[in-house]
């Protein structure tokens, strides 16, 4: 069964550094998402992406965050200047179309020191 793959599985970064989290969505999917889960808390929506542009974003997704689909297969989340509170599990998800469900990757654990 096709799946969403995320790399790396764990990223450790110094505060203030830039970090890029990478995702390969399911190949024929059209909608792409980033969510995050701070340890012990619920999964929170960050941003959705469709037709090469952001379709919705939450208040968490401020100017420090950006997303990109640099080619036909990758979908990236960049955090420009990381803060301690950015430490979380980041999940990528993709969806085919219409009422089809979102499929999640196994996440990248981001640890900011």
């Amino acid at each position, binding site marked *: 069964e096709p799946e969403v793959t995320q790399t790396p599985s764990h990223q450790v970064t110094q505060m203030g550094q830039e970090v890029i989290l990478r995702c390969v969505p399911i190949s024929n999917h059209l909608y792409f998402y980033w969510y995050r889960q701070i340890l012990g808390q*619920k999964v*929170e929506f960050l941003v*959705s992406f469709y037709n090469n542009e952001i379709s*919705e974003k939450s208040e968490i997704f401020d100017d420090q965050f950006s997303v990109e689909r640099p080619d036909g297969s990758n979908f990236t989340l960049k955090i420009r200047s990381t803060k301690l509170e950015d430490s979380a599990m980041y*999940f990528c998800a993709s969806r085919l179309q219409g009422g089809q469900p979102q499929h999640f990757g196994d996440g990248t654990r981001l640890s900011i020191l």
Partner: protein
Amino acid sequence: QQQVKQSPQSLIVQKGGISIINCAYENTAFDYFPWYQQFPGKGPALLIAIRPDVSEKKEGRFTISFNKSAKQFSLHIMDSQPGDSATYFCAAARSGAGSYQLTFGKGTKLSVIP
């Protein structure tokens, strides 16, 4: 108004018993209600989903009950097995919003003991 409230936070059930997890929402614009199962070190995996035009949906041992007037929905796991031990998240989305962004509950850690 965007919140989805989930209870209980944790649940211990004997093997063969019924596990029941409840969720409530406030935003009446929500019209898609999935349940996700998450094992440690893995991402959420879709278990079952319901839309408000039906009051119940069953897939194998998993059933969603939906009460539109009360704005509540619940997951029932019949004949619970140790392999069902995981964290379960309810979620809600607005299909009309286009992106179907999911609003999650806080999760329920289910432990099924032999």
